[in-house]
């Protein structure tokens, strides 16, 4: 393994929806500026786990987490942590593109405005930078005031990535970000992930095995709330250690 710093680390994470034990004793460490893919059958807990990294599950009644999530070595579940501050450091992109029914520009600067930024020039600069990073700038630069809803699905998803990047997080969580997109848009998102990892630590949930293979450095396979295996993506796809991993990735599950 390389000498990169550990950016995110889960220690003995258990999570419950009421009585249901959704995540069971999970330990995993992710190095900074790498892409980690979460794979596993539907309902195994990938999204639940992903959302633990920015405390998105806090909203759910009856949800309970035990264990620690260390972001740059600090536990994000510690009492003194402000969730708002956390969200600035950990951005998230969802499965379905979900732009607000506002202009493209307003979508990108939304988070910054909430944070209290009001300087027009600074906002415009941040918007341009984020749209560049999301590889959308060239397609929208002449229509920044157009409604975001008029964009194609693939463009909307990149807009949502731009929105997440605008607040300058250092971690980007993506829950099946390309599952609703056509192959060309998917390829663009994947290309984008490759570029973004120079600056961001990325965690992506995907049901597309080839996508996991193409974009990630390490892959974690989850099964029924357990982390079965986490290793270099190359290893997982050529020579996984666990029979369950092999059965899953070769499509011979169950």
């Amino acid at each position, binding site marked *: 393994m390389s000498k990169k710093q550990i950016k995110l680390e889960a220690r003995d994470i258990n999570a419950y929806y009421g009585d249901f034990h959704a995540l069971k004793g999970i330990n995993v460490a992710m190095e900074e500026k790498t892409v980690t893919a979460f794979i596993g059958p539907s309902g195994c807990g990938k999204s639940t786990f992903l959302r633990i990294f920015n405390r998105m599950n806090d909203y759910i009644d009856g949800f309970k987490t035990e264990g620690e999530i260390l972001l740059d070595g600090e536990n994000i579940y510690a009492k003194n942590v402000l969730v708002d501050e956390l969200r600035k450091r950990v951005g998230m992109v969802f499965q379905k593109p979900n732009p607000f029914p506002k202009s493209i520009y307003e979508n990108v600067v939304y988070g910054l405005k909430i944070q209290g930024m009001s300087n027009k020039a600074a906002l415009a600069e941040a918007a341009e930078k984020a749209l560049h990073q999301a590889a959308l700038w060239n397609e929208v630069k002449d229509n920044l005031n157009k409604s975001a809803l008029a964009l194609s699905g693939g463009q909307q998803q990149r807009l949502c990535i731009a929105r997440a990047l605008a607040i300058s997080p250092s971690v980007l969580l993506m829950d099946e970000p390309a599952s609703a997109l056509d192959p060309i848009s998917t390829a663009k998102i994947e290309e984008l992930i490759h570029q973004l990892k120079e600056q961001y630590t990325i965690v992506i949930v995907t049901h597309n095995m*080839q996508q996991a293979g193409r974009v990630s450095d390490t892959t974690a396979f989850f099964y029924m709330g357990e982390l079965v295996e986490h290793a270099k993506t190359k290893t997982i796809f050529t020579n996984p250690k666990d029979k369950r991993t*092999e059965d899953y990735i070769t499509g011979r599950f169950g």
Partner: protein
Amino acid sequence: MNHLDKELLAIKDKVNEMWSLVEFQMLAGKDALLNGDEELLRKIIKRGKKVNAYDIKIDRMCENIFALYNPVAVDLRWLMAILKINANIERIGDSSEGIAQLIREANFPVDPELLETTRVLEMYDAAESMLADVQRAFYEENTELARDLIKRDKLLNKIHVKTDKVIIRYIQAHPDNINQSLKVSGIIRKLERIGDQITNIAEEIIFYVDAKVVKHKQKKKRGKDPQ
């Protein structure tokens, strides 16, 4: 059985058929060496063409699976192994064809003294049984047997190394039989190659079953568990 499994099974069947062709070439070669059966020699050479056609067909089948199924893990290793096993079976076929040519040029009957002192028949027997066993190792995914084959190849190498000396001595004693000496020496070289090709196949079997690469180890370490 899922769809990919069916495709893989179809490849396995093809490899099996190709293996039988090559096995025939080997067995018939030894017969022809002993009884000069020209008809057999013709058949060996004709089967060679068939073997080549199988080689191409199997490559195509693998290619399609790579393109359409994105095979991973054990499937990927298996296909990679099949590509190499296929290539090696094809080369064993080539070697057998070459031997048939040499037998023809040796002009039956070959002096029994030459056959005896060069140990060429012994080599033939060893290579034949190795070929049968490597096929078995493949079907049973038997890495122990595969490792054993890598060791057994040493006998072929040992006989081969001594060939030049033995042949020179034979020629000194029988200066009128240089032609047969050279042909038998050629046959031995090809049998030695066949031993290597079988060894390559055995290594591929170990690779896909255990995911361990045993190739390119130093000769003396061969056959031992790499761990």
